[in-house]
């Protein structure tokens, strides 16, 4: 069994002189928007007319077990949707680069000047599947936006530096990290460990896995988490420069899983001065459960009860 290593590799290169005809792909009658944030999730598929778009579907070696998507990209946004399917559909299109951009002013959307045809530039991504782990890599640092459809039960390990991450309808171990982008999770299940440095983090956990620790943190954005009304958890909430809001009935307690520092430890060291800089709020909901940490430095923390 150990020697049976099954590797499926796909290498896609966007460098084709003629734009790839994706018109054959079915396309929903939807607007040609890229993943628009932080409003409603965009359509899963790009319009048929989209140039510079690549699609590839990847089968899992063990479809009966949840797969894992691993991505660590520099530029570009990632959108993952849980669908009723067994394979993984990856759609990538050259993005317009980092930074805020008007939705309709993407390089790929502009009609070419009269008499000229557009040449796709080099760059691309590769996909590898090994024992249910699907790794997606982007070659040279180039902005590519991904829209990925996965089976509902899928684990995600997604990282991007310049771009947003949107996940909708996926259940599993979700590890999400962005540096300069928004993180938005809707209708997810399982466990979430998410962080963004300079963006807003919004998460609606519809089906939290029992006994799983979670964390939602940001440096410069608000953290807004919606949980089922019946969720059992020990919350640790903190905003250094903002406020913490909740409509849960929070049983306040100090040090849910970390009791107070032992004062003897401090005194033994000849240093009895105690400064309380920990303004975190510890509380349990519905009798308590696994630890959920919600924390931001600049921004507010919201913990909402799902209506």
């Amino acid at each position, binding site marked *: 069994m150990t020697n049976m290593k099954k590797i499926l590799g796909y290498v896609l290169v966007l460098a084709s002189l003629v734009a790839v005809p994706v018109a054959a792909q079915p396309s929903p009658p939807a607007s040609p928007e890229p993943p628009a944030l932080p409003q409603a999730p965009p359509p899963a598929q790009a319009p048929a007319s989209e140039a510079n778009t690549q699609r590839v579907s990847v089968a899992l070696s063990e479809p009966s077990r949840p797969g894992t998507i691993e991505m660590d990209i520099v530029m570009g946004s990632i959108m993952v949707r849980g669908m009723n399917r067994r394979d993984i559909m990856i759609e990538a299109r050259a993005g317009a680069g980092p930074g805020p951009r008007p939705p309709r002013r993407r390089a790929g959307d502009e009609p070419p000047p009269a008499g000229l045809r557009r040449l796709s530039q080099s760059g691309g991504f590769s996909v590898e599947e090994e024992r249910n782990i699907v790794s997606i890599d982007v070659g040279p640092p180039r902005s590519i936006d991904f829209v990925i459809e996965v089976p509902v039960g899928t684990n995600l390990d997604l990282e991007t530096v310049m771009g947003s991450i949107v996940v909708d309808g996926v259940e599993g171990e979700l590890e999400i990290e962005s540096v300069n982008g928004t993180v938005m999770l809707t209708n997810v299940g399982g466990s979430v460990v998410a962080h963004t440095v300079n963006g807003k983090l919004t998460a609606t956990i519809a089906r939290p896995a029992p006994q799983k620790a979670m964390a939602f943190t940001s440096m410069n954005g608000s953290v807004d988490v919606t949980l089922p009304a019946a969720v059992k958890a020990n919350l640790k909430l903190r905003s250094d420069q903002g406020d913490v809001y909740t409509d849960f009935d929070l049983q306040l307690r100090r040090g849910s899983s*970390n009791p107070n520092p032992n004062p003897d430890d*401090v005194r033994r060291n000849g240093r009895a001065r105690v400064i309380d800089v920990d303004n975190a709020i510890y509380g349990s909901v519905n009798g308590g459960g696994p630890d959920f940490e919600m924390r931001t430095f600049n921004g507010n923390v919201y913990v909402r009860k799902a209506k």
Partner: protein
Amino acid sequence: MEHEKLSRLLPDGVDPAESEALDATWRMLGAIDAPAPDAERMRARLDAVIDAVEHAHAPARPRAFRSYVLQGLAAAALVLIGIGIGWFAGSGRTAPSQALAGSSPELAAMRSEMHDLREMVSLSLMQQQSASERIKGVSWSGQLDRPSGELVSALLDALMHDPNVNVRLATIDALERFASRDDVRRGTIQAVERQPSPLVQIALIDFMVKTNERESAPTLRRLAMDPQANDAVRARAAWGLQQLG
């Protein structure tokens, strides 16, 4: 299943907190993936045991076979320890645990085994692939009253090297209880400058202030002057210096 049998054995009037803690341990044991993630560490311990046995009883049987036998024995021992603890937990005690620990040497031994078991669970969780499980391992370590050096090193290691920001952040809370240990003081001071995450850096600066760690002053001074550092981190470092005065 073992756990349910044990629950049935528990008589009325058992200290609910302890029973709950026991429950949690069982759940945690059940949740850990069968192939122990810290297999190497376990193997190292096992090898040490094997070596000891080898010295005592040469000539030895083939190594691989012995190691399987020992692994089996270790697993069986663990199950027995668990059952034993359950038995003792259910043997009708209602008084606070400390008074009881003194009342029976067997019980004290069992409690010590229980502690070791929990520590093993915590260490094992910290080695998991899943960040959620690692966070759980870190916060579990907070329930141990006398953690070993190994556990504290695992926490420091996670603070320095865990790829997930949220895991690193969680270790700072857990390490606070051991702030007077030299390795923790050194490790956390080192980590302040090496952290790539500003959120973790700020949490570490707060840690220095909270534990009144004056030896961190040179580090905080450098950080406060570092043009490369995040503005909020520099401001926090300056504030920290002032607090440590």
